[in-house]
């Protein structure tokens, strides 16, 4: 549990014991200026068929609201082990969430996709509002989300 507090600088090493090689990836998620409270945001990886693989980050501290991040909730089963140590504050309207995470090389250019689910109290939930393949080519190219995400970019 203490790890949570240490992770505020937003640098995370994904624990993937089988894979030795990893590199830092920056994920930049800019929210549009919607009217409402802070958004819960789930960043996670799926395989090419959309099957859940790995949680990257959950913005939003109260796990009782996680069910609104519907696709992520379904894939991860909302098991604390899936997101322990990977959570932070919710993201306010119009602000940008910047994360730098260690991602295993084996997950890059290997058909995996970054998904983003978002939810805001008393507003719509957006499941997989961003779906982009995690590839070297895709780095630095912004993608617009279908809900609260104005643009999403990752770079190595």
């Amino acid at each position, binding site marked *: 549990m203490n790890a949570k507090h240490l992770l505020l600088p937003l640098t995370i090493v994904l624990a993937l014991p089988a894979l030795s090689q990893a590199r830092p990836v920056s994920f930049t998620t800019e929210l549009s200026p919607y009217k*409402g409270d802070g958004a819960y945001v789930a960043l996670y990886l799926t395989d090419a068929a959309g099957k859940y693989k790995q949680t990257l980050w959950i913005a939003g501290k109260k796990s009782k609201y996680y069910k609104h991040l519907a696709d992520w909730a379904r894939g991860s089963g909302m098991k604390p082990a899936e997101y322990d140590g990977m959570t932070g504050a919710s993201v306010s309207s119009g602000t940008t969430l910047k994360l730098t995470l260690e991602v295993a090389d084996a997950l890059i250019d290997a058909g995996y996709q970054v998904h983003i689910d978002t939810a805001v109290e008393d*507003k719509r939930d957006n499941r997989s509002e961003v779906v982009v393949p995690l590839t070297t080519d895709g780095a630095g190219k912004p993608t617009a989300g279908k809900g609260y995400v104005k643009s999403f970019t990752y770079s190595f």
Partner: protein
Amino acid sequence: MLRQLHSLPGLVAALLVAVMALTGAILATDPAQQRLHAVIPADGEMSVADLAGNVAQYYPGVEQIQRAPSGAIIVYFRSGDTSGADLIDPLSGQAITAYETPAFMRWMKNLHRSFFLDTEGRIATGSGAALMLLLAITGALMLADRAGGWRNALGPIRGTTAQRLHGMLGRAALLGLLLSALTGLYMSAGSLGLIPEALEAEPEFPPEEPLAAPLPTHTLAALKAIDLNDLRELVYPYPGDPADYYSVRTDQGAGFVHASSGEMIAFEAHSSARKIYEFIYMLHTGEGLWWLGLLLGLAALTVPVLAVTGTQIWWKRRSGMPTLAHNTPADAADTLILVGSEGNTTWGFARTLHDALTQAGYRVHTAPMNTLASGYRAAKRMLILTATYGDGGPPASATEFLAKLRRFNRTPELRYAVLGFGDRQFPRFCQYALDVDAALLGQGCTPLCPLDMIDRQSPQEFARWGRNLGDVIGTSLQLEHNPERPHTRPMQLAERVEYGADTDTPTTVFRFTAAAPTQKSGILSRLRLRYRLPYFEAGDLVGILPPGSHVPRFYSLASSSKEGILEICVRKHTDGLCSGYLHNLKPGDCIDAFIRPNPEFRPASGKAPVILIGAGTGIGPLAGFIKHNTPHHPMYLYWGGRNPQSDFLYQSELQHYLEDKRLTKLNTAFSRSADSAYVQDRINADNEELRKLIQNGAQILVCGGREMAKGVREVIDDIIAPINASVQMLKAEGRYREDVY
């Protein structure tokens, strides 16, 4: 103790709780507003499948359907690149309006539950709820305590305007505030994690399996089986995912619906803990129970008024007590000085005694008699300084003393002394001091020195008592009391109306206004055009200091400060220092006067009939009550004078009040007329009607001389004896009040 438990948290919480209550009251309108816009089919009229069919016609890109607790149906949809949410009519599937929680309400909600401060804010609002609960409970206890028991708690409330407003609003809002505070506290405890939060049923996602071709939503069997009014949320399968299910939440539980077979899978019922949580949530927010929301909102609206009036009451009580240097806490004091004071004169003596004893090294605790605790650990001496109010009654700061004394546990070493203050001119001189002394003896307490009495605030007699006390306790006590001149204001005689000017005891109605500042006034006073009249109501007293006297004379007021005049009715006594002074005043002359509130002597709130009885100049405050009876509550006046030709005070005014129904009935008796009757005779003649009025909750206010008041008590006792009532009982209920002189 109870009062401290009420007023201290009240002062601390006033602003906090007022903000929470105001925002709560605004939020409380939301369920009713939502309900106004919602179209709600009857139970059993529509299934979720029917709704999905209607929705499909207008929203091919539907993603999610929600049913708010108000019954409003909201459709979240996407068409092309745009997404939106509409409030719809479930019967047609058509949009009523675009849906969005108004920013204003969202802002209010955040202010209400957390002051925009998340966890810290939630701790603050949770504490606010706890304080509100404490205030509601102690407030109710005080109300019952004041009224003399729960049975009388719904009776009329007396006191100053602030006290009456505080009591009446608090009483009316009590249940609502209790409910809001209790449920709010529960919700705070839940969101702060102090009690486990009961979550909705959260069934596991069923394993994915390849599906056959999906069926249209409105044909799915599981959705046909759910009544629309049980629905909370229906989430459609993700368009790009053929293996996805519908997920559905209802009032009963949550589950998934197979898109091709239409079967419900993995349904899980809500736990009973969750159902309790939802019930409490509903009670707090009024969501799904709009009328309760409105009632709670109304109750919450009283809170800012309660906060303001409560602070006023506290301030008034505080400023009424002199500040005492070195007032030892009650439990640590070896000497207690308990004060029974109506105005503040007795407090002045108490302070002199307090200072002298403190100087001599005693640890002294000085407090109003009403604060008598059930016991004092270290006290060896209890010195009681008390005035007497009216006809042998307790003064304002001692009204609860005798009742509390019955529960008092004396320590064996405690000795007491009672010092009464009064005026020997009146019968029953220092009667209340005598009663207190007798009650203490009756409790088995041991006197330190015998009861003593001070006539007309005599500093010499007080010093003599001090020497006696000093001898007994073995300390030399020099009590030098310099009576403080009351803080007076100048008032200017505007008008005098004379009755019986040719007799040797004429009666005059004096009308004063605030005096214009003179050259002698300070700069600040001259900046204003006029002095303002202090606040007072009819029935309060004005203290007037005749030149060269430090002892004020009190007269009952016939007007309220709202009218801009101060009116008294004074009979000239042959040797009267003050009445003679007043009768020599000419319009334009100024007097020095101050106000002493007399909140007990006032018509109670409510519609119960009021019987006003008076003689002579006692008509003054009674005429004032009638003048202000603009709501036209039934008011009966019995008044006795001497001579109908020279002595009929307020004759034209009373005629006028009768005509416009402010006065229901007027009965006069004149002792020096043909039938030579007294007011008691008129009362006796109407005995049946009066008995009926009293039986129906009438209140009686008597103003005038002692003899008259005694005669009236006797005749009223006779009248109500057949219904097993007595003046004593009416007095205990606060329904019989006297202002006698």
